[in-house]
């Protein structure tokens, strides 16, 4: 019996082929160099991926164009192979990443220029982080050394924090989307954090390229809640760092920026108490001086009064002395006692003797 060829309509043939491709390659990663890169209508991205022996067409939406692509860049694309309605074979790209540090840097630089022009990195967009925050959200991989460093320093420096940790993948394809989702989640928490910290330890340029993803950078810039980043080592600066409100050099540095050191705060407590004690003592001393001055003033007033009284007494004494009858007698005057009636006797007192005299005549003047 001869096998009859399968007879299909064109549409059915395309559908069947796509079904077979789907089963064989639900997802395929292809490495190649970009050629003929173009964006149509601001929505659709087309390019070829080639190597020495072949070329394959690629297609994706602008939504998936997360890092700028140029001809000549080497990419690894994660895609679904498809036969289009026009019979053209193409890879529908779901995600991609650059291969090679040069291309990664070039792509990041192109995106940086674009976002800078939009003002995404402007200083006046930066917000201050809360001092001594109570509630903090952390986006990181809980398995990563950077996260562990961050938590260690955080616990060492401060107490009483409520830390909500969003565990995400921090490198590789899909990592940027996870961080974006976590950012959105943290921004919508009912009991919202005061600051969101994005943590990722050191890594290669490829590892850190997650944080040069356009959508992620925009999500950081758009975050309602201030964002602190601690990504990579001191020398690494990603676009996520530039969009964040505050950039820490490392995950450990992020913890140092986020919270004060409780030892410093405790030391400051005793300084505060010392200042209070000193101010209190100074005020007491001042009051004592004021009271002393008042007492001195009162003493002085009493002295003045006494002096014045003494003067008055002396004056009175002088007057009294002037009226002393003995002094009058001394000056040669006499005091006459008795009634000036004829036949009566009068006593005439002189300084040294008394004369008894009889009244013989009284003449009226």
């Amino acid at each position, binding site marked *: 019996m001869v096998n009859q060829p399968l007879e299909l309509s064109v549409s059915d043939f395309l559908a069947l082929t796509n079904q077979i491709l789907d089963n064989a390659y639900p997802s395929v990663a292809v490495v190649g160099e970009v050629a003929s890169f173009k964006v149509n209508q601001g929505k659709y991205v087309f390019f070829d991926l080639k190597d020495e022996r072949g070329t394959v067409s690629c297609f994706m939406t602008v939504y998936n164009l997360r890092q700028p692509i140029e001809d000549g860049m080497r990419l690894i694309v994660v895609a679904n192979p498809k036969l289009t309605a026009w019979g053209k074979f193409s890879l529908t790209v779901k995600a991609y990443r650059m291969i090679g540090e040069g291309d990664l840097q070039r792509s990041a630089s192109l995106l940086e220029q674009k976002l800078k022009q939009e003002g995404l990195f402007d200083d006046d967009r930066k917000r201050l982080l809360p001092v001594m925050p109570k509630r903090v959200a952390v986006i990181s991989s809980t398995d990563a050394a950077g996260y562990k460093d961050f938590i260690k320093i955080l616990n060492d420096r401060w107490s*009483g*924090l409520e830390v909500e*940790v969003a565990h995400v993948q921090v490198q590789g394809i899909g990592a940027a989307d996870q961080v974006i989702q976590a950012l959105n989640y943290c921004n919508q928490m009912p009991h919202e954090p005061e600051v969101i910290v994005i943590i990722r330890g050191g890594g290669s340029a490829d590892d850190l390229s997650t944080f040069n993803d356009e959508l992620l950078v925009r999500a950081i810039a758009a975050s309602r809640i201030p964002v602190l980043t601690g990504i990579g080592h001191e020398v690494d600066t990603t676009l996520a760092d530039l969009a964040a409100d505050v950039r820490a050099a490392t995950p450990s540095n992020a913890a140092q920026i986020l919270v004060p050191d409780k030892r410093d705060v405790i030391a400051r*407590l005793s300084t*505060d108490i010392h200042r*209070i004690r000193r101010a209190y003592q100074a*005020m007491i001393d001042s009051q004592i001086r004021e009271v002393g001055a008042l007492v001195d003033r009162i003493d002085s007033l009493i002295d003045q009064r006494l002096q014045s009284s003494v003067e008055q007494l002396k004056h009175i004494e002088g007057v009294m002395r002037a009226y002393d009858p003995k002094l009058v007698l001394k000056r040669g005057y006499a005091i006459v006692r008795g009634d000036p009636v004829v036949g009566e006797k009068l006593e005439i007192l002189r300084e040294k003797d008394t004369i008894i005299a009889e009244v013989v005549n009284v003449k009226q003047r």
Partner: protein
Amino acid sequence: MSNKDESDIKQKISQLSEMVTWFEGDSFQLEQASDKFQAAQLLAQEIETELSKIGNQINVIKQDFSKQ
């Protein structure tokens, strides 16, 4: 640890700072100083105790962010 406890540290530090300002400022009144001084000492002690004793509460969110 509750939110009340957390806010207490920050509030207490702020209260202590206000007390320092009061003692060093024009509002100072000797009649109130003794009580305020005792309160400041107590506050400083409480802050130190709280900072030394309590830890941070770390909670890993259950949400799976790898799912779209």
